């Protein structure tokens, strides 16, 4: 039996006194595209951050490719996250002082790959997402769309089982946003990764195989779209 890409069981999370998640469960199959939607403050970004291991839930479990994050040491958790999960945020979040190629090679270098091999893989991904010509530019020299493309390359360069994207088109206009989504989908499909996508934009949610809608920290409904 193939492991699920992601499984959350009754996850709870609160910021001081604000409860963001009240027992959310979610399963994501390998290669599946799931949109997490809902009004502002419904807990969708918190859910994504818990799933990606960025936040640690106060109750419930998160399993990434069959491994319970709570059972792993800090070092192993970081390693699992770095190799199995890619993250794309609204504003790319690239390291501002590094060139695009170094930004994309970084996850591989942190995993101990040799520099030449890491840069070769980074170059391939930058070409694939259409910013190969900008490999030696730093993020400040490029547009939001170009940086976001590089962020997709960085998320996929390690060949992760799952990619987490939080409003990945949020900083782009609608046409650029749709192109970005097409690129993100094509990229996760190339790598066979699952995609969990947080969005408030219905046109972007319509790209998913399944929609999970949150309200006040609980799943309001869940429907198949494909």
């Amino acid at each position, binding site marked *: 039996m193939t492991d699920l890409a992601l499984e959350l069981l009754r996850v709870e999370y609160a910021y001081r006194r604000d409860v963001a998640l009240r027992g959310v469960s979610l399963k994501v199959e390998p290669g599946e595209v799931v949109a997490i939607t809902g009004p502002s403050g419904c807990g969708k970004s918190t859910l994504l951050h818990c799933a990606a291991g960025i936040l640690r839930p106060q109750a419930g479990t998160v399993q990434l490719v069959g491994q319970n994050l709570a059972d792993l040491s800090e070092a192993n958790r970081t390693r699992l996250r770095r190799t199995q999960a890619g993250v794309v945020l609204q504003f790319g979040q690239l390291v501002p002082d590094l060139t695009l190629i170094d930004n994309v090679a970084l996850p591989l270098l942190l995993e101990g790959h040799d520099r030449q091999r890491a840069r070769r893989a980074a170059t391939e991904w930058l070409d694939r997402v259409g910013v190969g010509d900008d490999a030696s530019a730093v993020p400040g020299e490029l547009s939001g769309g170009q940086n976001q493309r590089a962020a997709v390359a960085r998320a996929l360069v390690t060949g992760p089982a799952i990619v987490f994207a939080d409003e990945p088109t949020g900083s782009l206009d609608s046409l650029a946003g749709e192109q970005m989504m097409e690129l993100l989908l094509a990229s996760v499909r190339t790598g066979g990764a699952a995609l969990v996508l947080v969005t408030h934009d*219905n046109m972007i949610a319509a*790209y998913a195989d399944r929609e999970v809608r949150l309200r006040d920290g609980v799943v*309001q*409904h869940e429907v198949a779209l494909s």
Partner: protein
Amino acid sequence: MATAELVLGLLHRGPAHGYDVKRGHDAWFPDSRPLAFGQVYTTLSRLERDGLVEVVERGSEGGPERTVYGLTDKGRAHLADWLSEPIQPALGAVDEMVRKVVATIHTGEDATAFLARQRSSHLRRIRELRAASADADDDTPARLVRDFVAVHLDADLRWLDGAMDRITELKETRR
């Protein structure tokens, strides 16, 4: 047009005559075109012919004849089916969606379940339109039509989301 189903919805609380049906409709949709009397009576006759409503009382009490109509079991089932089924998202079909949501609330059906079904139906349609555009090998006028429909479906979705929020809040405050 879903006038027939709306008339069934207006009879859900109990038998009524044509005038009450018309007044009920105009109260449900205060900012829309009033329902014409002629249309009410034609619709009631057709519904009676199809066995969805029946005459429960016929009297005049000294004035003009007033026929009172009530829902049959078949009519009740037809109404429940109509209220549970999302509309086929297409150009010009939206009025029926609004009618269904309003009728769902008035008849005490689960409006949030309907809104969720309609939402997924809209999202699926956007997917289909996008796939059709991706398959087309040129920028034909057909693509412009698909874009037009998709943008309007997006507007519907925003209305559906707002309706979901309002209805959920209302439920919470009544709890």
